[in-house]
């Protein structure tokens, strides 16, 4: 395939992915808006008003970046895992596998589907958050870079999960038992400074800590961890995940007999 044909294949795959989640927007976009509104009301307003300040900001201001990032992580992951597993389950993935589309186009097509959903949900959730608090962006470049890198990373993780999943149960195990607990323990609702030293150090082994804090730094200018190190962690994980996804596609593991 020449470059133009690859471009057509890529845009076809991305638009297919976008059409898929827009077609079922009540399952893909609406739940995040409702869930985050509840978080804002309960943690930000009702409980937050009694907590006072955290990291030098009101509690509402403190939790908003973490909650936005939580929505991005969940949605970019869910989009790829459900779409690719669905294609595998219905065998429609064969449409792609028998075509001359190079593996990296297949992967980037799914990644961009996940990234676009993550970004769209981020816009929705951010808009909802403006009903509860005002948001001043401290560093737009960092915000854009963190959001992009994070959604790419979790889209890749979703892809790996989809390749290995045998049933629809398998695609909900990781989000339920791994992603959600790590996000909650990743400093969305609290600053690591509040934890005893031992638990603060344990928390630093959680990759979500770097994701949440890097984004919070871009929005508020405060972070529990070094921002450069955070970028290195997110970027490093993304490179490893990308390499592994390409390996899975190249070898056809769990995709070809």
């Amino acid at each position, binding site marked *: 395939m020449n470059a133009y044909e690859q471009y057509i294949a890529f845009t*076809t795959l991305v638009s297919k992915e976008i059409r898929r989640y827009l077609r079922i927007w009540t399952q893909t976009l609406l739940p995040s808006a409702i869930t985050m509104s509840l978080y804002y009301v309960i943690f930000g307003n009702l409980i937050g008003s009694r907590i006072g300040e955290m990291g030098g900001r009101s509690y509402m201001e403190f939790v908003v970046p973490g909650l936005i990032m939580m929505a991005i992580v969940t949605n970019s992951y869910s989009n790829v895992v459900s779409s690719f597993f669905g294609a595998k389950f*219905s*065998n429609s993935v064969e449409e792609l596998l028998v075509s*001359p589309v190079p593996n990296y186009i297949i992967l980037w097509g799914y990644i961009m589907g996940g990234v676009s959903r993550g970004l769209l949900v981020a816009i929705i959730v951010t808009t909802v958050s403006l009903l509860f608090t005002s948001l001043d962006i401290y560093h737009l470049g960092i915000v854009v870079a963190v959001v992009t890198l994070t959604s790419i990373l979790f889209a890749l993780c979703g892809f790996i999960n989809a390749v290995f999943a045998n049933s629809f149960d398998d695609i909900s195990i990781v989000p339920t038992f791994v992603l959600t607990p790590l996000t909650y323990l990743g400093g969305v609702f609290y600053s690591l400074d509040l934890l005893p030293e031992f638990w603060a150090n344990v928390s630093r082994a959680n990759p979500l800590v770097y994701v949440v804090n890097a984004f919070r730094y871009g929005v508020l200018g405060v972070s529990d961890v070094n921002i450069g190190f955070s970028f290195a962690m997110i970027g490093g994980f993304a490179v490893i995940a990308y390499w592994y996804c390409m390996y899975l596609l190249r070898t056809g593991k769990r995709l070809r007999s």
Partner: protein
Amino acid sequence: MIPALSITGLEKTYDNGFRALKGLNLEVAQGEFFALLGPNGAGKSTTIGVISSLVAKSAGKVLVHGVDIDEDFPGAKKYLGIVPQEFNFNVFEKPEDILVQQAGFYGIPLSIARERTKHFLGQLGLAEKSSTPARMLSGGMKRRLMIARALIHAPKLLILDEPTAGVDIEMRRSMYDFLREINAAGTTIILTTHYLEEAEALCRNMAIINHGEIVANTSIRELLRDLNKESFLLDCQVPLPGTITVEGFHVAKVDEHTIEVHIEKGQDLVQAFEGLKQQGIKVLSMRNQANRLEQMFVSVLERQA
């Protein structure tokens, strides 16, 4: 001329140790309408899987229009259109979207993709269903949708894995006409089927695959010539006598108005008619008792055993 498909020494051993293909060799010339026959589990679908890249081969060489799949699989795939046995499209999508997307995966610009989609949906009688979710289509319509999808990038080699399974007779015939048409226009077609009369009606040459090996590869006419015996059912004017014998022929009374006659290779059917006529039996019509190709198929497998 470069063959449309050339397979040499193809081997496939699955992880559980099962050898599905044992050094299979096959060559299909350009412009052929070729049948690949074999019992269930013979290796037909595995062969198609290897050609289409859904199954990784253990050894051997596959060339599609001279392009080695090991050296340039994307290049080889451009020549290939595959209609698999199982439905493998997203049933929640509309036929027009399925076709346009598939064209996109082959790098075909949207305007051309839309044109071709309209053309093939019309040709295969799906125009009215172009915006209906695929899950709402009948089994026959789904099969035709898969054929349209396989043709959207104008492949030079079309491989159909049991394309008429579950399709009613009327629709099957219109599908035959359509396939003959695209074959006449230059597309090489390889067909696997369990309806052996289908292969007889459509294909000039055929190969029989059994236990992962090609056991026969010649023209259908040639193979039928090898048949030693054929059975005919004769519908006769009633009443028939209690016992019927015709010298040199094995004849049996099936019911009050039907006689079964076995004709061995070299025997003259007219002699059998003569013998019956002498006994006052008038034959009104005649038909094959069993599909000739089926008999041939069984005899080839028996010979191999």
